[in-house]
């Protein structure tokens, strides 16, 4: 057992209102720079939809992540082998281009002030932020298909619909049944990251203390294999500085005990951050499990922080008590491991992503019936009026399974049964219109009990700031202290970069010669 700690995350999709506040927070802090305008370290996609960059989930095109099929059936990068990396270094056939994202633009606002008097209102034409030239037509943007806009082009081309039956596709498009939900995405800070493995320069690494995946700007040489290696397309290439960049999980904030900016600003309060302990020796096995078992294998690699054996091993591995304590309070541990409600996004990419999603229930199908608001299907199936039959839910289980369980519908069904139990139980508590027998039936089907349901309810709808964000003291300052010579008041050798935490550039990050 080799115990490590990882800052890990949960997004509760039922609560996301698609406001993009998270994106704006991130953009304002980190990517509002030349060369980074097109980057969205945090973005919010509408599902069904093609996402950002377009059809990023289509690994036939982008070749991200891992596949089984190396020597002795072991894991290998879908992109290419190590020799292939060197051979393709002058031209990477699978690299997305700016057109798969969009060409960033601004507007010629000055013209609104300077235009000579005329018969027409002056306009502010679009100007490309890459070339500085006027752009006549803008064909794509980072969120072009927001709320199913242009769904004939976008939603219909969602790679997750490839496995949907004709019937399911038809139902999802039917007016009155149409449904969508939001999928906010950041870097998953994976346990088996494809970006790290693909980088020939060794510029990307996982930070041992907290598992944050970072690109060393000084070591990156623009070989751009990480962009292909990441199946989530969450490493970006700064076209101006010639360096790869990615989400840094706001580590300067984490180090001072604050949650990342997108978490902090989230309006729907869908985001949770917490520590988990995991067994590094199990990573390879978990990442190479058979497809249907991937979710469970990843759960198994996460350890129980209350188990005395785990605690002893963690202490022996030098994990401070504050972190073990944080792991015990972690909301992520509860959602992922104890309640089995939060699932990784596309586990079949085999990078063991450490951002987990509670799948959305979707709105219940309801209609007015004899002046009474009633849920469709439910009555016919003899179910509580709150819920239609799961199998008839608006978003097909198969679609959810394609997103969150590598196609294993049983896992999704179990999650939903439990979420249904929470709704039924809480409604019985508050509105008192569901007979006790039905409540008990829902609890049994959900494989849960009243105590657990109340805990889930509490952490879902009423959590305090401190319950959502359990960020342990990182004690980064003591970690880097050893790297500096002792402070000498006479020589005044005080570290000027605050102990080199945060972005400690010694000079401006400008394009090289």
């Amino acid at each position: 057992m080799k115990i490590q700690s990882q800052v890990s995350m949960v997004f509760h999709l039922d609560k996301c209102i698609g406001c993009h506040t998270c994106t704006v927070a991130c953009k304002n802090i980190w990517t509002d720079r030349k060369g980074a305008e097109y980057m969205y370290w945090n973005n919010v996609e509408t599902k069904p939809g093609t996402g950002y960059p377009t059809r990023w989930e289509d690994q036939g095109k982008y070749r991200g992540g891992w596949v089984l099929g190396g020597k002795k059936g072991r894991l290998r990068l879908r992109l290419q082998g190590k020799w292939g990396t060197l051979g393709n270094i002058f031209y990477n056939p699978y690299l997305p281009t700016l057109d798969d994202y969009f060409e960033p633009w601004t507007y010629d606002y000055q013209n609104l002030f300077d235009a000579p008097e005329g018969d027409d209102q002056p306009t502010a034409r679009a100007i490309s932020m890459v070339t500085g030239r006027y752009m006549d037509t803008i064909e794509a943007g980072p969120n072009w298909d927001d709320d199913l806009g242009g769904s004939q082009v976008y939603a219909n081309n969602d790679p997750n619909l490839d496995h949907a039956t004709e019937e399911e596709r038809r139902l999802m498009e039917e007016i009155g049944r149409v449904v969508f939900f939001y999928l906010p995405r950041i870097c998953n800070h994976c346990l088996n990251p494809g970006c790290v493995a693909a980088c020939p320069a060794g510029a990307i690494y996982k930070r041992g203390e907290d598992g944050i995946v970072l690109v060393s700007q000084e070591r990156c040489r623009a070989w751009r294999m990480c962009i292909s290696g990441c199946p989530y397309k969450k490493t970006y290439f700064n076209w101006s500085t010639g360096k790869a960049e990615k989400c840094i999980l706001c580590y300067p904030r984490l180090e001072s005990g604050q949650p990342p900016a997108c978490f902090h600003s989230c309006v729907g309060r869908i985001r949770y951050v917490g520590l988990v302990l995991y067994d590094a020796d199990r990573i390879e096995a978990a990442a190479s499990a058979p497809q249907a078992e991937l979710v469970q294998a990843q759960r198994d690699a996460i350890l129980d922080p209350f188990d005395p054996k785990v605690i002893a091993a963690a202490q022996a591995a030098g994990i401070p008590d504050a972190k073990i304590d944080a792991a015990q309070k972690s909301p992520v541990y509860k959602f992922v491991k104890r309640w089995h409600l939060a699932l990784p996004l596309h586990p079949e990419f085999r990078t063991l992503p450490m951002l987990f999603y509670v799948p959305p229930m979707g709105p219940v199908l309801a209609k007015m019936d004899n002046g009474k608001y009633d849920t469709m299907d439910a009555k016919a199936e003899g179910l509580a009026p709150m819920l239609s039959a799961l199998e008839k839910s608006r978003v097909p289980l198969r679609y959810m399974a394609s997103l969150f369980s590598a196609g294993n519908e049983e896992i999704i069904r179990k999650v939903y049964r439990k979420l249904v139990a929470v709704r039924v139980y809480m409604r019985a508590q508050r509105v008192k219109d569901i007979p006790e027998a039905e409540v008990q039936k829902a609890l049994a089907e959900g494989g849960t009990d009243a105590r657990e349901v109340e805990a889930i309810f509490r952490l879902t709808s009423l959590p305090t700031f401190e319950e959502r964000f359990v960020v342990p003291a990182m004690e980064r300052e003591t970690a880097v202290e050893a790297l500096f010579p002792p402070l000498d008041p006479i020589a005044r050798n005080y570290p000027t970069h605050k102990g080199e935490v945060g972005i400690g550039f010694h000079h401006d990050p400008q394009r090289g010669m």
Partner: protein
Amino acid sequence: MSDIVLFAAFPYVAVVLAIGGGFYRFRHDRFSYSSLSSELLEKRRLFWGSVPWHYGITIVLLAHLVAFLVPGVWSRVIAAPATLYTLEVIGFAFALAALMGLCVLIARRLTQQRIRSVTTIMDWVLLAVLLLQVALGFWVSLVYRWGADWYVHTAVPWLISLASLNPQTQYVSSLPWLVKLHMLNGFVVIALFAFSRLAHLVALPFWYLWRPYQLVIRNR
């Protein structure tokens, strides 16, 4: 006299600039070490430029290098006319690939707005010098056939004399000016090494082949 300046002094200046400048840049401005790829901005033309250019020039340079490092072996290999002939043809083909690739890259930089917006003056200088160098080499191999042979008896002893810090310009002084220009310009390329994106050459990540896939760095 000018021979001494051009073929004895200048090569040392170029090499010192490359090595000294390279180390200085690595120590003080490591961030700027990058191949500055523009593939994200434009991909199709890059393929037709970058791939033939890089593979062509690598093979041609390797041939120059091998003949310089092991001239004895090289001479024995090309002693057979058939081998000499084959090697010349192969070298010619790769040089042609490099030249065409370079032209595509230059045209791409000229015509593609996106690429122009990330092009510096130094990029143009470097492209011009490289184009001159490849064109000269190409021309030399056309006009003065069997370069694989006479290179070993003229440029190689001169380079060896330079390397052994005992410069002997007489090996090259009587060569045609076309050949001389090629040699001289070669050292201009070396001189530019530390001050242009050429520096990415020493960053080629061969150790990736032996490295484990995952990198974890901890601070305690």
